């Protein structure tokens, strides 16, 4: 049997850029704490808000699990107030992550807070990959990622770091055999469109979800092989399988 929600201790909860928080929790677990692309449902409250919030695994180091989140609403606002030793309830790891068994030249492309699963993915692949990261203005986590990748490409919308513009402006798909991407839907759509070999582009989808475990069907998306649950069959899908406009 899988365990349900576990109560864990907050190790740290740090604002690393405006409204961007790095949350580390301590988990004692004999099972896998999760693979890149998998996620956890988190809640630090009782019944208000009612639902838990899904977050990708950003890193796993021994018994410490890292999440990265942007404060956008009530749930993330509550999370941002947590202090070390506070309690948090977690359910996971959930969903299907990225296929790590790839060969050839690999590119990781992230937009904004979509960088979260890409950090853990970069660390796990750790084989001369190129990392493309697009930000609005403030840049974060690049020093950590540098240890695991061959080259980093950065864009900011205000041009404060790296090249001014969007990450899709500088991404050169023809250089790569495999592409992994996570970020805003229009960004991922463009990445898939630009890649000629679409069967080797993998996207991490986001959707509003209630349960995170495949029963509410709130996060279902239409794919070329029928309706799929982002939380269960995903969140990672082949780029050619999904429709970004629906």
């Amino acid at each position, binding site marked *: 049997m899988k365990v349900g929600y576990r109560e864990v201790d907050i190790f740290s909860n740090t604002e690393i850029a405006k409204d961007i928080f790095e949350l580390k929790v301590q988990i004692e677990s004999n099972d896998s704490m999760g693979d890149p692309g998998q996620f956890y449902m988190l809640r630090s409250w009782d019944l208000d808000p009612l639902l838990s919030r899904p977050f990708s695994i950003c890193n796993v180091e021994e018994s410490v699990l890292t999440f990265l989140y942007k404060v956008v609403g009530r749930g993330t606002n509550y999370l941002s107030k947590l202090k070390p030793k506070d309690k948090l309830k977690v359910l996971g790891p959930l969903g299907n992550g990225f296929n790590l068994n790839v060969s050839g030249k690999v590119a990781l492309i992230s937009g904004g807070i979509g960088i979260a699963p890409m950090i853990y993915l970069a660390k796990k692949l750790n084989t001369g990959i190129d990392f493309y990261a697009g930000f609005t203005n403030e840049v974060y986590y690049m020093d950590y990622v540098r240890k695991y990748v061959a080259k980093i490409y950065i864009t900011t919308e205000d041009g404060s770091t790296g090249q001014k513009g969007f990450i899709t402006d500088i991404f050169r798909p023809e250089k790569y055999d495999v592409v992994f991407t996570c970020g805003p839907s229009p960004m991922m759509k463009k990445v898939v469109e630009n890649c000629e070999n679409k069967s080797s582009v993998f996207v991490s989808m986001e959707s509003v979800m209630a349960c995170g475990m495949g029963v509410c*069907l709130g996060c*279902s998306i239409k794919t070329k092989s029928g309706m799929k649950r982002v939380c269960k069959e995903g969140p990672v899908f082949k780029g050619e399988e999904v429709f970004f406009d629906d």
Partner: protein
Amino acid sequence: MIDTKVNIAGVEFKNPVIAASGTFGFGREFSEYFPISKLGGLSTKGLTLRQREGNKGVRIHETTGGIMNSIGLQNPGIDAFIEEELPFLNSQDTVIIANVSGNTIEEYVISVEKLNQTEIDMIELNISCPNVKEGGISFGTKAEIASNVVTQVRKVCQKSLIVKLSPSAENMVEMAESCVEAGADALSLVNTFPALAIDISKKKAIFDNITAGLSGPCIKPIALRMVYEVSKAVDVPIIGIGGIMDYRDVIEYIMAGAWAVQVGTANFINPNACAEIIEGIEEYLQKEGISTLEEIRGII
């Protein structure tokens, strides 16, 4: 010695906790968290004659004390359910209730005829889904229309028949009485409340269908009042549904007149919710020196 068993329309439930339709899939996902044979029963995701993809756009929206959903009966269709999901459910030691929806009376009838041939324990007729354009709730607002659906289904239905009522019924008691008269063996109430949420930056409704079904703790006091009123008016067993989050809520429903309950939204925020509620009921009865649910049923 406490006994939580309850008999509804000739079907014995080991306890009064039934997983509500649309919140428990076909049981597989939850069976990874706890043995689902602990449940009194399980009502399947709403089934339709043909497969449905469900609704487009936003499907879930959180609100204070509740969630709104507009899934739109995404399901594999009756035949695929019988072939692919039912064998697993039948292997579980719990009451299996097939929740059936339709766009037309004929669709309900064909679906029920197909289910007659299976080992399903009961059928729950969903005349109250707020998220489909035809059928669903339109059958559940006017008593004479509901009565017609139930009469036609009753003619063919060889299983015990539960009718699931909508809180949008023009007159809840009249609706309940009509459904019983038309042949319902039991009633379950209530389905979600049609509700509205607006995105003020996009200046349009959150949901493509404009309205969606509200569930969760915010609806509990209203649903509880409806169960109370209906249980006083009809003689068939009532299954109470609406915002049950813990065992205390279940006891309230039993005291209001319910024989059993369905737990829905709580499953989304805790996969072990039903198992914990069942334990909580047992502990409560033990502590209060109550040996059967009948002792407290309808005492209000």
